[in-house]
């Protein structure tokens, strides 16, 4: 007998409007535990809005979201404990050092033994030698690496990432995916590069004009993805 498990993330009829503009229109999506889902779409397709709503930063106009069966509307604080978020921006304070920033977030997330965890992550991401430098002196790529460390501090079960590779060099990109795959995490990420995103994902979907345009149940072939993406651009 097959064991039924709740999807790690389930989105039902999600909508979000800004004034008269509909950024998301009745969008539905289910992500299985351990899945790495890549979301592609043209500019303005609604990818960032979707991730902001999933990360509880923004409230939807309509629809429901469940994390492992728990409703985001009823249990947001507990759900946030299980989430790691990497955004376009780093969420880091430029006048504090890398270490200060990570200590601050560790305290917010109640990370036990955070000193060891911080040093481990900074080692992995090649930032150990700069841990006492102010984040304001970091390059874009270094800030992005530190943002990844921040997102993984509390060992989240689910990671949401908006263009996670922006500013990273190729070795940092490899480290990023190696760190992400530890602990069999569920990952949802957006990417502007079809090839790179396809490589990292175990399933891909395409959004267009606030809707799920292409949402196969299993990983499609690169050819199918390219064809679907080209069609999505025509509707944009």
């Amino acid at each position, binding site marked *: 007998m097959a064991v039924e498990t709740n999807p790690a993330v389930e989105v039902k009829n999600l909508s979000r409007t800004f004034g008269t503009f509909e950024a998301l229109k009745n969008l539905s999506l289910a992500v299985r535990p351990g899945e790495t889902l890549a979301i592609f779409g043209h500019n303005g397709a609604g990818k960032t809005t979707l991730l902001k709503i999933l990360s*509880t*930063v923004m409230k939807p106009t309509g629809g429901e979201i469940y994390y492992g069966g728990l409703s985001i509307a009823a249990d947001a604080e507990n759900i946030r404990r299980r989430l790691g978020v990497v955004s376009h921006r780093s*969420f*880091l304070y430029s006048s*504090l050092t890398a270490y200060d920033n990570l200590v*601050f977030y560790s305290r*917010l997330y109640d990370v036990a033994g955070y000193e060891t965890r911080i040093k481990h992550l900074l080692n992995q991401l090649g930032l150990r030698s700069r841990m006492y430098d102010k984040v304001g002196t970091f390059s874009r790529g270094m800030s992005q690496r530190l943002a990844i460390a921040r997102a993984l501090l509390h060992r989240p079960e689910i990671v949401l990432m908006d263009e996670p590779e922006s500013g990273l060099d190729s070795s940092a990109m490899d480290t990023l995916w190696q760190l992400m795959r530890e602990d069999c995490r569920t990952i949802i990420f957006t990417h502007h590069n079809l090839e790179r995103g396809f490589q990292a994902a175990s399933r891909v979907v395409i959004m267009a004009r606030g809707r799920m345009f292409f949402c196969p149940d299993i990983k499609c072939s690169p050819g199918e993805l390219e064809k679907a993406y080209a069609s999505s651009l025509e509707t944009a």
Partner: protein
Amino acid sequence: MREIAKAFTIAAKDVLTEIRTREIISSVVVFAVLVIVIFNFAFGSNQQAAGLVAPGIIWVTFAFAGILSLNRSFILEKEEDCIEGLMVAPISRESIYLGKFFGNLFFILLIQAIVIPVFSLLFNVGFFNIELVLITVMASVGFASVGTLFAAMAVSTRARELVLPVLFFPVITPVIIAAVNASAAILDGGVLSSITQWLGIIGAFDVIFLVASYLIFCFIIEE
């Protein structure tokens, strides 16, 4: 209790940021001292007039200095969308409000602690007694409670430096009036019982606006 602990973590981060940058305290203290020095020159030779206007001068100075400090507190969170970093953390929106409130209250009190001795020296008024400390702390709670909420609202607007005073001053006026009158009564030789009605106004304002701001804050940052 956990909410308060998280709020203190946020406030401690603001204090650490200030220690690293010294942006708020240095600029606000210089501004406040300059205002007091200018008023001192204006009333310098007339000790009687200076004594009469002293309570008004100190509270107007605190109000303007407070605006500068409050404005800065959320600009810090807007850079690199740090406010979103707080919003995705497993803490309530109310904890974020309390954290920023505690941080702002600390800075306002610190600025007052630096500026009051300068004021006392230049205007030759004794500001160091328990009644005046009580008035100052209570009025500062009112400043910080309303100011934190309005600073969060103003930071998302383009003209935030203008928006905050326009929102803040009309609402905080009862506190300024009560604080000026209470301070004047004490400087005039009054005792605590003579200012209870003014303290009552400030206390009621503090409770109402602290509770209201605490409850409204989540709608402000989520929209």
